């Protein structure tokens, strides 16, 4: 096909970096979480590209699992945020620092 795989890889990497920047710079816990989801999806894209390059369908299986685990993670993480909000009335990451030295 005429689209070089390198292009897909580049796209995936750029998405990953955008997600990383968001995870590092955002103060709202939910926004950070969203950025993490973006990172994971970018990785999915990369996996699929590599699988296509090598003709290996196990990359699809891996992606499948990643999605399942991301779902589980999202559920638990959001439950944690809910509990956190209930007790601290805030969801800003900077305020949650009781484990400071």
């Amino acid at each position, binding site marked *: 096909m005429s689209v070089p795989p390198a292009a897909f890889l580049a796209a995936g990497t750029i998405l990953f970096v955008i997600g*990383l920047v968001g*995870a*590092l710079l955002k103060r709202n816990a939910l926004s950070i979480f969203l950025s993490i989801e973006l990172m994971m999806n970018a990785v999915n894209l990369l996996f699929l590209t590599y699988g296509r390059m090598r003709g290996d369908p196990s990359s699809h299986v891996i992606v499948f699992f990643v999605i399942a685990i991301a779902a589980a993670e999202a559920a638990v993480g959001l439950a944690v945020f809910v509990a956190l909000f209930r007790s601290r009335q805030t969801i800003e990451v*900077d305020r949650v620092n*009781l484990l400071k030295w």
Partner: protein
Amino acid sequence: MTSLWWIPVLPLLGFVVNGAVALASSSRRARRGERGGPLPYGERLFHGLVGVGTVGASGVLAFAALVPWTQQSLAGGALPVVETVFRWMFAGDFSVDVAFRLDALSALMLSFVTFVGTLIHLYSVGYMQEEEGYGRYFAFLNLFMFAMLTLVLGANLPVLFIGWEGVGLCSYLLIGYYYDKDFAVAAGKKAFVVNRVGDVGFVLGIFGVLALFGTTDFSFLEAARHQIVSDTAPLSVYAVCLLLFLGACGKSAQVPLYVWLPDAMAGPTPVSALIHAATMVTAGVYLVARTSTVFVLAPDAMTLVAWVGAGTAIFAATIGLAQNDIKKVLAYSTVSQLGYMFLACGVGAFAAGMFHVFTHAFFKACLFLGSGSVIHAMHHEQDMRKMGGLAPRVPQTFRTMLVATLAISGIVPLAGFFSKDQILGSVAAAGQWTLYAVGVLTAAMTAFYMFRLVRMTFAGEFRGTHEQEHHVHESPATMTVPLWILAAGSAVAGFIWVPFGVSSLLPRFLAPALAEVPEHEMSHGAELGLMALSLGAAIAGIALAVRWYTGRPAPEHAAHKPAEEIVVSPAAAAFCERTGALGTMIKNKWNVDEGIEAVVLGPFRSIGRFLWKGFDALFIDGIANASAFLVELTGDLLRFFTTGNVRNYALGFTLGVLFLVAYALFR
């Protein structure tokens, strides 16, 4: 014939049984709060039966084994009986078995060790009956018999060493029997530590023997008597002999390793009799006799042995002249007599040395047990200045002790005369006239201080307190019967070797086990003259003692004065004044203990203190503290990383991944 190994094992069983029962009983009494006081009759009976019974049975077995063997040996020669129990160590060519050996030397030792040992066990039944630690006493005494018999029956040096260490341990345990008395505990430790110094030499000597001959087995050492090992450097043989002799000095209390023996008198008197007179202290002589084939290869070493023996003999005799504690006199007398035995071995008369070991066991044990009887009668008074006039009050003790004292003084026809004369005769025949003179002088002193002891204790008027006077009584039969038996032994034991061809049972018997030494011949006339000389010296000593120590009249108010102020013999006191500084030195035992304290112990303590305060506290603790401090410091510095902020942690991740990727990319 039953196995040889039953002979040591029976007392071992006695130890286990007595020990277990004593432990159980004492913990039961402690729980019930019944501390102090003698044990009930049933327990005493049990402990006594087991204690005396096992040793007695062992003795019966011993005699059953050695009597026929002895007869055969004297008749036409008998081979040593070696019985291997199990294989102990092996590495390549080298192997050591736990094995027991019955030959002339071990048969001789076995005979009197079991005989005297059984008598002393019997004596202890009466002597120790007031003691709460009765069971413990008999347990340890049985353990001692086990160790001593292992020592005597051992077929090679390592097994002998097991017994050697065992008797040292039991010595410590029994000297410190009165564990609530500080000086007894200290004496036990002193005995063990000083022994240890000798043991270093002994162990190194065993290694040396192994290096020289490739084996430590006595059969080989005996076989070696027929060939001189010519390719070994004389210096190494000399060194090995010195090392073995060092071990013997420790165990047999020769100068300077004798200091433990007088202090060991802190233990119960039967212990002093058994261990520090009759058996353990003779182990050193036994060792030298056993390895005689090695010693004859190093004549210089033998000279050293002779001189150390003679020097110790006279040195200890001088101290014995001024001692006032009845047991201390006997202790120094033991050291002195041991010196005689080594003197004999040193001039090549190993058989004469063993002869003196044999006779000494009888009369010294009799003397110690007799002194125990006296102490018992005087209600634990041991200072002779507080005694006097006891002859009519404890007649059996007096008579038996008199016999033993005559024996040790070398009066014919008692045992000591023959053995001492044999030694002095051999010394003279070897041409060692200085040593001979020392020996005769020592004999005179021995007679003097022994009769001084007898006179101060039994003659004249009583100098003790009135309560003591009321208490004085003869000892029970369990104590007097052994005394009579030992006195009889002191009288007749000498007849196994009478010169001029009257009886040479012992030298013929021992010859196969000892090294062959060229005989020095002396004419009958010369020999007779020397006998008269030593007899004369002894009689002179006795006469002086009898004259000076009449004990009559008793000093004024002696009953009320403390012992230190009583002067029993004004003549002796005057003589002491005239000798001035020399007399003071003798009274102070030549300040040997103080010397050791200053020269050896003091520096050791200083080094120890330095290592403790300087090295350990500062340096090693410093390292530990510094490392702890470093950890704390690092922690203090690193804790700033735990900000509690999740974003910082995420940043950390990112930086880490960055470095990893960079590394992977630019490797």
